[in-house]
Structures are given as structure tokens and as C-alpha cells.
């Protein structure tokens, strides 16, 4: 069997095509596809490339705003950040590869998202990563954490883009299927943004970067091994990242982009050569001829099938203006990268692949793209959960013990062990480092900055997908707001189980509607994103995890807020209403050992009102210390403000304060630390706006005094917060 042998229904099935999909392929071609063509169909119609199960719902998301330059559909989203600059960003998952080979899987995940961003003309300025691991006591977890973190650092540190933030939590639903979501934010001049839309009959198609090997040819793994069953050499292999080559590719692309030689450019991601060439042609309504003999190859005897499906990293496909080949070649040779003219654009409307003189594939572009399958999969809403108040949960331990337990728990403890393995300062623009609500990265050579964060609370989403989806967006918006940034737009990475299961599809539909609702209410459009389905092992799906990556803008670096309390005598002012919602809270899980209940409801109008109020306080210089209240409620928020600063706090709390008050996770709340005069002024303003406030403490000393609940030395808190992760990793 070879590239040209006819595909069979069995082979199609092995390629993940359903019988109907295969029939449609035959119909489009008017004949049975050969193996190479089958490979191309399977890639273009895969869930990953075609979004066939999610499209219907993604369409409902708000993607526009006056400042949005380019929404979903391109390699990354683009927003206007003023002064002639654009922020370009996206988040992507690399879950399965990272489970198989944590270091390389995570590393190539970072490499891939970086390319998505610089392929549009941006210089990457910040990386983030949202990580979900299995239970800490699961035998595989420790090895996965150390490999993933080393892999993310290994790639980002080498290429020299600071990794400034992210998330890292643990839950047994991820035991057999961790989540590794990487986000990159870049900056480009608004008049130098590059798209992947081919144009100009006769224009040359250029291949640049690394050579193509048999890396990660999956989906079709078995088939390809059979039809050409040689020794191990021939079998597909795990993809290995080469951050050094990516650095050269980045600089070379930016150098070429400074000229006007480029018509279109796209990175080679999953099934690189196929998706990049096909998508560029289809976006531009063009035909494309490729001569595969000219593709730079790392190994001998590679077939057309392998070349088209290879996932070798650090490669780009470029359509140049005819006649500019030599200018481009000179740049890539300077950077010691492969450069090859592998084809031309045509008016045929077909993708024609030649190898060894003969035609190995001939496909109509538009029909293949247009008739890509789209499914409206059956979905069942998740059953509603009861709200849980303090009175429903007998406190097994006092506030003191509970706080020490929570601040030292896997999800809430300090992630210093992780971010100290990431170069988070390279490029010398990191103003607020990891450890705060959002990281702040200065726009080079200016007094303005971007604030960036990733957020999601999977326990909320599984309890109530709609509210959970709303909450993920709201918390992201809140984390940006708490720094004084104006939230601008988001990217998402929707990690779910199998869409073929009604309950999972129900979670997806619910979460997307919640995300859309919140994004609309907060004017926080979704400009890019990624869907990762089939995150499950033997029928057990991960907690629904729609990670939200947010970007905000700070207009004046002298007006920003940090979370650390750095001087005594400041009044802690709680802004926002407290009810003591304990449903699906971290307290309920870690202290009471329960994972039930409804998540705290998100009132988007209130969220926006309180957030805008707080941001204004920061922008007008009244507030420079602020933290949002999220996991673990007021108690944990205050503890985090102490640990990020240098002094303790003496709390003054209402008599009625119970564990619901201390640990409830009611939304739309912030804590600011200001001098008493300012506090009273703020309270007055809030009152007239109908916003609840309460003075909850005063800073000073080296203890956290919990009033009636006794007191905790700051060092006790610090040891708990800083101790868990290093101790766990060294055990």
C-alpha cells in the first residue's frame, strides 16, 4: 500500500472519519480518495481543525468591540491598544502530548502558541500557562508536574519571552488527562499585521524553518505504519521542541515582515503542511500547487502522506510577492534556517500535490472547506445544585485552623516553585511579577502596560456550567480590574470530555452560554480561542475547564495597584456584598470534604458596577493596594495580601461573622488597603452608588489577628503557603 492506493472505509475509520464523512469525501472528489488525500480529509475534518462539534455554539459568542481589529478565525486575536499598537494573543491546549511526554509536550505547546502570535507580525512579550493536574497523591502527578513545568520553562526561557502568569490546580478528574494550556501575548504596529489569506496567482509558496521529519504523525499512526511497515525508524515519533530554532525563526520572520514582501503567512501547527497550505488557499479562494520534492526533509524516504501530516515543529509557510524570493532567502539564510520554494498559487481552485513527477493528490479547495461537517450534538443540561449557606455546614475546625489548611492547600498555596523556574523578567518590562492578581508587562519604551491573567474555577463549572462559565470570565475581568487595568478582550481554551456524550455536551453548551453572557455584559469580547474535546480516560471526563485568558490596558504605570500590604496603619476596606455562599467552595471541599452545592451566583450588573468603581479608585490614585476576593473568600484574600507584603492585619469583624463570612466565595468583591481618611471618603462614594462596603481591619504588626478567632503569626501563614509545593515536589 502506498500514497496512491485507494482508501477503504476501514482506513477512513482509522483516520477518524465516520462513514458519512467518508461518503461525502468520495462525493466531493467524484472518486475514492487515495491514502494521501484521505489523510488530508481526516485532518481538515478533524475536530481540531473543523470545530465540527463546537462551531454552532462558538458562533454565539460576542467577538466584536470598537477596539477589536481581528476576532476569531485568524491565527490569533488582535485588539487596538492605542498609540499605533495592537495586542495579539491566543491560548491553546497541548493536553494529550503533555500527558504522554510532559517535558516535550508542554514545550511544544509553548512553541506552537508563540508561532500563532508571531505569524501575525507580533513580537511576543508575555507567556502564561493554565495547568490542571491529577490528585497530588496519584502516582503520576509529581512526575507530570515537574516535566510540564520544566518543559514550559525550557522553551520560554530559551526563546527569551517572559512567562509571567497562569494557574495551577489539582483534582482527581485530571488523573488520567492533565490540562496544559499555554497563552502568548504579543505586540505589533497596527499597520504591520499579517494574515493567512493567500492572494495573487503565480505567487510563490515558501517553506521556512526546520526540516520535516516523521514527528507526531498521529490519527493515522497505525495506517501509516502498516502501509510502509519498516523498522522503528519509520514509525511516527513524539515531537521534540527546538526553542533555539524558534528564536531564529521569530527574528527572521520579524525581519522579513519589516519589508513588504509577504502576501500571507501561517505557522505549521497540527498536521502542519496540510492545514497551513489548505487554510491559506481556502481563505483567499485560491488554488495551490505544491511540489513535495522540494520540502526540506530530515529523513530519507518520506512519503507524501507523511510530509503532509507531519507535525514537525518550528516551521512556517509563506506566500511571497512574486520576485521577492531572493530578498527573503537572504534573510532566512542569515538566520541559518531552511528556505525552500515549494509551490505557487493558482486559479484552479484546487490543491494539487506533486511528488516524484506524479500527482499524489488533487482536491477541490472550496468544496472540501465548505462541506466540512458540522454537528448539532445532543446535549443534556447539568442538574441544578442547591445553594449552600454556612448553616448547612457544621464547621469541623475553627477559622484559624481552616485558614492555615486552605492557604497551604494544593490549589491555593503559592506557586513560587513553578514561576521561579520560568524566566519572568527577560525583556526587562515585567512591572508586576507572578504572585499578584494579574501580571503587568510594560509596553516597551512607554509608560503604559498590559495586564494579563488566566482564570477558571472548574468546580463551579461542573456544579453549574452556565454560572461557572460566567464566573470564569468575571474573575478574569476582576483580576485585571484589581490592578487598575481596563479589561480589553479575552481568549479562551475550552477543555471538555467527549462531545459525543450528552452530559458533557450539555456542560459545553452551558459554559459557552455563560461565557458569552458575561463577555457581553462586561464588554469583554472573545477574540481568539481553542476547543479541546475528548479529555477523558476510560469514560471519566475531566471537570469542565473553560480557561479564560484576559488582556487589559494600563494607561499610566504610576497608577496601578498591587496586592501586598506594605505599611502599618492602613484600613482594609471590603468592597462588595457578602452573603457567605459556601456551595462548591474550596472551604467545602478542603475542610468539609464535600464537592456539592451551587456555585456563588454571578450578578454581572453588580460585577461591572463594583469593578468600575474600584478601577476608578486606582486610576485616580486613591488606591494602590487592592486584591480581588476569590477562592477561600475574605480570610484567604487578606492572608494573601499580608504574604505579598510586609505587615500583618488586625481584623475587626461583625459579631455575626461565621465560616460563611470568612470563607464564602460571593462574587464581585475586592479588598483595598488605604489610609483611614480615604477609606471614609470611599465608603461615602460607594454608599451613594449603592455599593456595599465594610471596614474589616487595620494593618500592623507581624500577625494576622482574627478577632474572636485568635491570631496567627505571619510566619505560620507563610510557612503554610510557601511550604506545600516544594515539600510535595521534593518528597
Amino acid at each position, binding site marked *: 500500500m502506498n500514497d496512491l492506493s485507494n482508501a477503504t472505509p476501514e482506513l477512513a475509520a482509522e483516520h477518524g472519519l465516520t462513514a458519512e464523512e467518508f461518503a461525502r469525501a468520495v462525493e466531493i472528489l467524484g472518486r475514492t480518495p487515495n491514502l494521501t488525500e484521505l489523510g488530508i480529509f481526516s485532518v481538515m475534518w478533524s475536530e481540531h481543525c473543523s470545530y465540527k462539534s463546537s462551531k454552532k455554539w462558538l458562533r454565539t459568542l460576542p467577538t466584536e468591540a470598537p477596539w477589536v481589529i481581528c476576532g476569531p478565525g485568524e491565527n490569533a486575536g488582535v485588539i487596538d491598544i492605542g498609540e499605533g499598537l495592537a495586542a495579539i494573543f491566543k491560548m491553546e491546549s497541548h493536553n494529550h502530548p503533555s500527558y504522554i511526554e510532559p517535558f516535550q509536550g508542554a514545550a511544544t505547546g509553548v512553541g506552537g502558541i508563540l508561532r500563532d502570535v508571531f505569524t501575525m507580525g507580533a513580537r511576543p512579550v508575555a507567556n502564561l500557562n493554565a495547568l490542571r493536574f491529577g490528585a497530588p497523591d496519584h502516582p503520576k502527578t509529581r512526575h507530570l508536574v515537574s516535566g510540564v513545568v520544566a518543559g514550559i520553562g525550557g522553551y520560554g526561557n530559551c526563546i*527569551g519571552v517572559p512567562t509571567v502568569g497562569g494557574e495551577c490546580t489539582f483534582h482527581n478528574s485530571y488523573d488520567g488527562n492533565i490540562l496544559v494550556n499555554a497563552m502568548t501575548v504579543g505586540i505589533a504596529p497596527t499597520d504591520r499585521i499579517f494574515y493567512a489569506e493567500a492572494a495573487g496567482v503565480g505567487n510563490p509558496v515558501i517553506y521556512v524553518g526546520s526540516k520535516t521529519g516523521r514527528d507526531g504523525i498521529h490519527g493515522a499512526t497505525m495506517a501509516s505504519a502498516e502501509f510502509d511497515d519498516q523498522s522503528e525508524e519509520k514509525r511516527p515519533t513524539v515531537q521534540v521542541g527546538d526553542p*533555539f530554532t524558534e528564536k531564529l525563526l521569530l527574528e527572521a520572520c520579524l525581519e522579513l515582515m519589516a519589508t513588504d514582501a509577504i502576501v500571507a503567512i501561517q505557522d505549521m501547527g497540527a498536521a502542519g503542511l496540510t492545514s497551513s497550505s489548505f487554510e491559506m488557499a481556502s481563505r483567499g479562494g485560491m488554488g495551490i500547487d505544491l511540489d513535495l520534492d522540494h520540502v526540506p526533509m530530515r529523513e530519507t524516504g518520506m512519503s507524501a502522506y507523511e510530509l503532509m501530516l507531519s507535525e514537525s515543529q518550528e516551521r512556517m509557510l509563506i506566500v511571497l510577492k512574486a520576485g521577492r524570493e531572493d530578498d527573503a532567502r537572504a534573510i532566512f539564510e542569515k538566520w541559518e534556517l531552511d528556505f525552500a520554494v515549494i509551490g505557487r498559487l493558482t486559479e484552479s481552485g484546487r490543491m494539487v500535490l506533486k511528488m516524484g513527477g506524479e500527482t499524489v493528490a488533487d482536491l477541490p479547495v472550496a468544496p472540501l472547506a465548505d462541506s466540512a461537517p458540522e454537528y448539532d450534538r445532543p446535549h443534556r443540561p447539568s442538574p441544578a445544585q442547591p445553594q449552600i449557606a454556612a448553616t448547612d455546614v457544621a464547621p469541623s475546625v475553627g477559622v484559624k485552623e481552616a485558614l492555615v489548611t486552605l492557604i497551604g492547600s494544593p490549589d491555593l498555596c503559592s506557586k513560587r516553585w513553578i514561576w521561579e*523556574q520560568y524566566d519572568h*523578567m527577560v525583556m526587562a518590562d515585567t512591572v508586576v*511579577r507572578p504572585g499578584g492578581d494579574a501580571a503587568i508587562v510594560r509596553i516597551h519604551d512607554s509608560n503604559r502596560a498590559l495586564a494579563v491573567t488566566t482564570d477558571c474555577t472548574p468546580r463551579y463549572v461542573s456544579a453549574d456550567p452556565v454560572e461557572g462559565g460566567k464566573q470564569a470570565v468575571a474573575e478574569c475581568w476582576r483580576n485585571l480590574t484589581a490592578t487598575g487595568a481596563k479589561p480589553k478582550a479575552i481568549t479562551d481554551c475550552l477543555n471538555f470530555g467527549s462531545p459525543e456524550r450528552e452530559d458533557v455536551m450539555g456542560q459545553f453548551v452551558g459554559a459557552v452560554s455563560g461565557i458569552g453572557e458575561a463577555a457581553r455584559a462586561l464588554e469583554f469580547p472573545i477574540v481568539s480561542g481553542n476547543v479541546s474535546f475528548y479529555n477523558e480516560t476510560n469514560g471519566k471526563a475531566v471537570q469542565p475547564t473553560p480557561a479564560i485568558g484576559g488582556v487589559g490596558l494600563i494607561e499610566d504605570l504610576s497608577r496601578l495597584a498591587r496586592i501586598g500590604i506594605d505599611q502599618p496603619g492602613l484600613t482594609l476596606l471590603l468592597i462588595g456584598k457578602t452573603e457567605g455562599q459556601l456551595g462548591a467552595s474550596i472551604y467545602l471541599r478542603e475542610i468539609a470534604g464535600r464537592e456539592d452545592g451551587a456555585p456563588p451566583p454571578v450578578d454581572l450588573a453588580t460585577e461591572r458596577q463594583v469593578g468600575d468603581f474600584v478601577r476608578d479608585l486606582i486610576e485616580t490614585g486613591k488606591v494602590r493596594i487592592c486584591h480581588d476576593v476569590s477562592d477561600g473568600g475574605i480570610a484567604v484574600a487578606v492572608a494573601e495580601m499580608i504574604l505579598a507584603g510586609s505587615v500583618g492585619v488586625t481584623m475587626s469583624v461583625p459579631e455575626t461573622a461565621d465560616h460563611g463570612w470568612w470563607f464564602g466565595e460571593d462574587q464581585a468583591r475586592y479588598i483595598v488597603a488605604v489610609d483611614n481618611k480615604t477609606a471614609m471618603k470611599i465608603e461615602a462614594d460607594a454608599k451613594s452608588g449603592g455599593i456595599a462596603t465594610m471596614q474589616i481591619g487595620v494593618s500592623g504588626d507581624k500577625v494576622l489577628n482574627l478577632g474572636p478567632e485568635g491570631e496567627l503569626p505571619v510566619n505560620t501563614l507563610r510557612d503554610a503557603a510557601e511550604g506545600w509545593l516544594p515539600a510535595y515536589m521534593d518528597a
Partner: protein
Amino acid sequence: MKAAVVVFPGSNCDRDLKVALSQSMGSQPAMVWHRDTALPNVDLIAVPGGFSYGDYLRSGAMAAHSPIMREVVRSAERGVAVLGICNGFQILTEAGLLPGVLMRNKNLRFVCRDVFLRVENADTVFSNRYSAGQVIRIPVAHHDGNYFIDEEGRAQLEGEGRVAFRYCDAAGAADDRSNPNGSLSNIAGILDPTRRILGMMPHPERLSDPTLGGDDGRALFDSMISALS
């Protein structure tokens, strides 16, 4: 002062260094590409941090053998001051301009955080704006910063006052707890016998601007201005 920053494939702190230098110099340093075979006529050659050639094989090894480094060595012999930061330090040791080697960090992990340094020798073109024994705060960000040299070499460095900086705690105590990478005798930076070549793992260019949380690094660049202009 006229300065040049040498850029290798994989350098990634070249721009940061340029910014810090020009802030002190009031003019721009020349950026020299590794393929260039000639250096402009300068008072200072700065070799930046990063991952030259991916730091494959050994950190700094391939850069150390590139054509431009031969020029750097020649200039150094003529007395031009040379500053190597992080990967630059590794390159200078691989090129034989400085003794010893930088091995993998003791705990094998990359480390990026602020550390305290004790200024051991304030009588050099790089450190005259500091005072001996002064404790400064500057970040490290490296995987291979574990300085090693044989006993004889160590004794010589110490004896000749060629240890420029030592890792220490806020109070200036250099002990194991304040040692981020396992370096012998907490050595963070060293000088050549002429005191005109400095290699250091910490990144002064990353804390030379109060907006970034501190400017203890700036005095190092200011020192060179006063000494080399």
C-alpha cells in the same frame, strides 16, 4: 564611553543590556552580530545573556568559538573592558578569558528570582559606584550558574581580590541558604587578573529602573561610565 554589545544567535538579553547601557551612557551602544569579524573601536564590550546557540552541548561553548570572540579576545588583550552577564559569563569562561566553569545548578532547576549580592571588590571599572561590603539586590535567571573552579584557582581568585560579587542574604551573610545555585564559595561574579574583565551570573540590567522594582543594578553601568569615559 563607547560600547558594543555582541549578539549571538540565541542571545535574548541583548536589548535589555542595550537599554540599561544607553540609560547610563546617554548614547546607544553598537550592536555587533556574531558573524562580524571586526569590532568597532570601543571602551567596553558587553556579552549579553540568553541561550547562544541554544546553549546546546555546553552553555556558551559554541558562541565562545565564533569568529567575533577572537576579536573580543584581541581587544581584551589591548585592555578594552569586557563585561559578560549570565550567558555572557559562560561564554567568557568557555573562551578562556575567565577561569573556572558554570555547571548545572545544584538542584538541577532553572532559577529566576532576586538575590542579594555582597560587593567584594568596589575598586574596579565595573563597581566603583558601589562600596566594598555593600549588599545589593539583583535578579538571577539561569540553569547553569553553579560556579566551579579547582582549589588552587579558588585560592588565587580570593587571594587576588578577584571575586567581584558573592551571593548572600539581606544582612550580607554568604551561606548555603543564600546560595541560589550551589556556586563554590557563593561566587556570583569574578574578575580577570587585570580587573578589566568581569563575568557575573546576576542580571544588573534587569534592575536598573525603579519601575521594574529596583535600580541597584544601575550603579554598575554608571561605574563604567565614570571609569571608561
